């Protein structure tokens, strides 16, 4: 599986710039080919068996093909996707069959698939992405090769990620028209790498947030539960990435999904070792000559936080403090009014989203428990019915037992309806949670913008300082006729530095502008998507409530009908009793 020849295509850690222009070379294309050919037999068989199985883009719910239980079996997943909303046919017409028993409060797997069977606009968006299938399945436990210091930390899980691309988007892009399926094994650490790489490469984009590392859960939860939770979270995450118009088409993403064997993306060096790196360079930067003190233009496009350049961190920190406290107007400020307004709006939105999603959770819980209690009351009545029937001596007891039974049945039915409703409610209100998650991405995109701006500001004030120094030196040297050699030399050096810094500034400004542009586009995109999502959420939520209530009414129609019957029964009984009363008075 390790395939060294594939790794060679990617192993040299490409810089961001390189990554961007990373055209898939012939070598890597062949790697993809070999990857294709080594796809597990069952999957390739199913795709080869019907190569024209390019499904109509409108009808397919690629998301619902999560097919959590039945890993990688396209047939079943397709079938289940047809059962999905928006028709709700199964919910409406056969609400009481055993199939729905596990509806509301099922296990993690059930919830997962329920959550993923999304409603129309989302799937429409998914239909625009290059992928018609992304599934994470078949978690497998592996032994860590390197000895870990943490006891019990020696094992990890890998997941089989199966993807199928839409026709015409095949890996090598050479116009092959049949959908191609890939299967790779990845571990969670690889996903972390992917998300880090994406964060570096796509500054200013709203990159869907990666599932948490959840160290605690992995200890607390049952192994199976945890793995299942992570599996579905990963699937969800990958789908979100795929749906993103830019990220979904990115090479990093493609490589992650398609390159066989070990993930060829370079792992970003962790912060500690970067700091060390920076610390080594720092003295040189402080005392060293010429070039060492210069800012490398290419690096300013990366945020300074990484720790590679401690001096830059210090400088930018100083700049930030100056901005904050100094009252000195920085040379370049965020002047985009529209953006600032938008940012404020997003903050507001985040707050409302968070409170709405909290309330949604409370609501769902309340709905859940009313359903449960309804069920319990039904059960209590069933027991009572049984008891009364067994012990009945008088006919009035039998009548009562029959009435009780009716109520019991109705209550149990109502309880099931509540559970059904709740499952649907959870599904639709999940949109809120999802968008709340996206707000994280928005925030980090905004902070990328801020840090890019900070870089620009720092460079500009650097330049200003350098210019004044040059001016001073020039003034000083001009006093001495013929010039002071050492001063002239110094001026030359400073001019050189200024030139490099100007370059760097140019780069930084361009990067900043790029991020700004990305921000703007992404905000528009998100606004539109959120509108669609919210609309479909509201619709789904309300339709379910209506439909559910109508089933409720159906049940209650029975109930009303029966309660009319009951009323009759009661009326006759009442007459009997009143006769009795009259007779004795």
């Amino acid at each position, binding site marked *: 599986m390790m395939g060294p020849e594939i790794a060679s295509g990617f192993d040299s850690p490409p810089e961001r710039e390189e990554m961007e222009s990373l055209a898939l070379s012939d070598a890597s294309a062949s790697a993809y080919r070999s990857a294709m050919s080594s796809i597990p037999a069952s999957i390739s068989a199913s795709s080869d068996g019907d190569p024209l199985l390019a499904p109509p883009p409108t009808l397919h719910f690629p998301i619902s093909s999560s097919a959590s239980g039945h890993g990688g079996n396209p047939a079943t997943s397709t079938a289940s996707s047809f059962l999905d909303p928006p028709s709700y046919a199964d919910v409406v017409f056969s609400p009481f069959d055993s199939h729905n028993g596990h509806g509301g409060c099922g296990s993690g797997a059930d919830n997962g698939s329920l959550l993923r069977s999304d409603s129309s606009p989302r799937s429409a968006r998914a239909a625009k992405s290059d992928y018609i299938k992304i599934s994470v399945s078949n978690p497998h436990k592996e032994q860590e090769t390197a000895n870990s210091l943490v006891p019990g930390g020696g094992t990890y899980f890998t997941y089989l990620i199966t993807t199928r691309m839409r026709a015409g988007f095949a890996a090598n892009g050479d116009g092959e028209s049949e959908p191609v399926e890939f299967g790779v094994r990845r571990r969670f650490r690889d996903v972390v790498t992917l998300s880090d790489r994406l964060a570096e490469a796509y500054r200013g984009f709203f990159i869907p947030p990666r599932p948490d590392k959840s160290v605690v859960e992995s200890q607390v939860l049952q192994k199976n539960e945890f793995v299942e939770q992570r599996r579905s979270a990963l699937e969800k995450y990958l789908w979100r990435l795929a749906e993103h118009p830019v990220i979904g088409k990115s090479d990093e993403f493609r490589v992650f999904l398609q390159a066989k064997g070990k993930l060829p993306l370079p792992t970003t060096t962790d912060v500690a070792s970067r700091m060390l790196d920076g610390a080594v360079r720092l003295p040189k930067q402080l005392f060293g000559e010429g070039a060492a003190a210069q800012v490398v233009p290419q690096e300013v496009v990366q945020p300074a936080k990484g720790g590679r350049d401690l001096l830059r961190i210090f400088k930018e920190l100083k700049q930030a403090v100056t901005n904050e406290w100094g009252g000195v107007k920085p040379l370049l400020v965020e002047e985009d009014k529209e953006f600032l307004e938008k940012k404020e709006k997003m903050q507001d*939105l985040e707050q*409302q989203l968070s*409170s*709405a999603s909290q*309330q*949604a959770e*409370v*609501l769902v*819980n*309340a*709905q859940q*428990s*009313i359903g449960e*209690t*309804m069920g319990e*009351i039904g059960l*209590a009545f069933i027991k*009572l019915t049984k*008891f*009364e029937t067994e*012990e009945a*001596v*008088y006919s*009035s*007891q039998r*009548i*009562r037992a029959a*009435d*009780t039974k009716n*109520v019991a049945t109705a209550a149990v039915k109502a309880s099931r309806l509540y559970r059904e409703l709740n499952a649907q409610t959870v599904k639709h209100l999940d949109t809120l949670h999802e968008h709340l998650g996206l707000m994280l991405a928005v925030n980090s995109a905004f902070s990328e913008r801020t840090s890019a701006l900070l870089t620009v500001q720092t460079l500009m004030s650097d330049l200003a300082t350098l210019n004044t120094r040059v001016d001073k030196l020039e003034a000083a040297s001009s006093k001495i006729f013929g010039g002071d050699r050492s001063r002239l030399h110094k001026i030359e050096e400073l001019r050189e530095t200024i030139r490099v810094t100007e370059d760097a500034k140019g780069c930084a400004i361009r990067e900043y502008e790029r991020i700004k542009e990305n921000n703007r586009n992404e905000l528009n995109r998100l606004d539109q998507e*959120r*509108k669609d999502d*919210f*609309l479909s959420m*509201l*619709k789904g*939520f*309300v*339709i379910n*409530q*209506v439909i559910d*209530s109508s089933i*409720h*009414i159906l049940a*209650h129609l029975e*109930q*009303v009908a029966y*309660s009319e019957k*009951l*009323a009759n*029964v*009661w009326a006759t*009984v*009442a007459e009997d*009793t*009143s006769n*009795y*009363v009259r007779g*004795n*008075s």
Partner: protein
Amino acid sequence: MSALGGGGGALRNASTALAISSTESFAGTPSCHTKRVRRPPGSFYWLHAVTPAPPLDTTTLKQLVFVSDYAESMIPPEIGPQKSSSQSPRSPSGAPFLSISVTDPVKLGNGVQAYISYRVITKTNLPEFQGPEKIVIRRYSDFVWLHDKLADKYKGIFIPPLPEKSAVEKFRFSAEFIEMRRQALDIFVNRIASHPELKQSEDLKTFLEEDEEAMERIRSFETGIFKKPADLLQMFKDVQTKVTDVVLGKEKPVEETDPEYEKLKHYIFGLEDHLTETQKQAVRLVKRHRELGQSLSEFGKAIKLLGACEGDSLGKVFAELGSKSELLSIKLQKEAHNLLMNFEEPLKDYVRCVQSIKDSFSHRANAFRLHCELTETTKLKEINLEKLNLMRSDKTREAEIEYRELKAESEEATRRFETIIKRMNEEIVRFQEQKTAEMGLAFHLFAKGQAKLANDIADAWRNVLTKIEAYSLSSGHD
């Protein structure tokens, strides 16, 4: 003329209430009553009307106005007040009727001594009663007095149960608790008034007709001199027999072994368990309705705010959803109240009735024991007497008198025991029929309430749905 008398009573009551209300912050209550009283003997209406009504919590007001169908129904229609008003009291030719209503709970007194007094209105054409209408003021302990008197005198009859003595202090004066208790007391008195035997009781008449001072006197007289010592004596005796039984190693006190009776006992105990469980769930269901209502309203608020962030017409859809959620929340609260009054309370009453049956079990057991003991002793005396007769002793005469007395006593005990059996056999039939009717009604109201709630929910959401569809059409065209 009776209206005048009634007016006098009301005046007294209202002025007391007024006095109290001005010193206490409970002033809302009397004003609630005016809204709730449905059978107005018009003359004393204005008295309440002059009471200034600083608004009580509006929701409690609503709840109080929300008249329980259940309570209404417990009054057999032909003796119900509605009919009685159409029947002229001056024409005694009409069918005999006796209808009682317990109304106007008013908080009186302060602190620990605070209590609720009720107005008990009796309307009747029965000749035994003083007049066609009588209004008295009674408090909870008066009802207890009536209950205990009846329980003492009519052993074997399932005395209608009273609502629980005390609730948690915090809820004791909550509008909901007061209303529930009022309803339960109303049912209690009317059950007595419609019971073939109990309604002829002198105690009931005392309870309904004596003025407050006389009532007080009677109660203190009885509790002070008779009731307690008698009770204590009985308790002492019970303990004594038990002790001697244990000490002398006698067999357990004789128990009835009638299989029918055994079956009944088994049934009642089982029933109690089942009903307690069901009632517990009903309480929970009420709570769940409230919680769902609460969370729906919170959700509605949050959705509204979220909609405000969206602005434009989508924001309006959100706002629509939000306000409908809040509306439904109110409906849920109403249904919770309906459930409490018309479903949970009847179930609780069912449990109480079963407990009252259990009381009569112990009466029956006591009567049976007495009957057995006396029969036994009588037999011994008889043998003894025969011996004496043979011996022609001087004591014969004495013994004969003693024997006769004992025999009479034994026969009395036997008769009492048999009465209890006879009564219980009748009562159990009554009980079953009554409960079938009452539970039928409770089920009916439960189903009706739930159906109405579901309808309301469906209507509200359907309304929102049309708005959403309109929006998605318009945005689709853009």
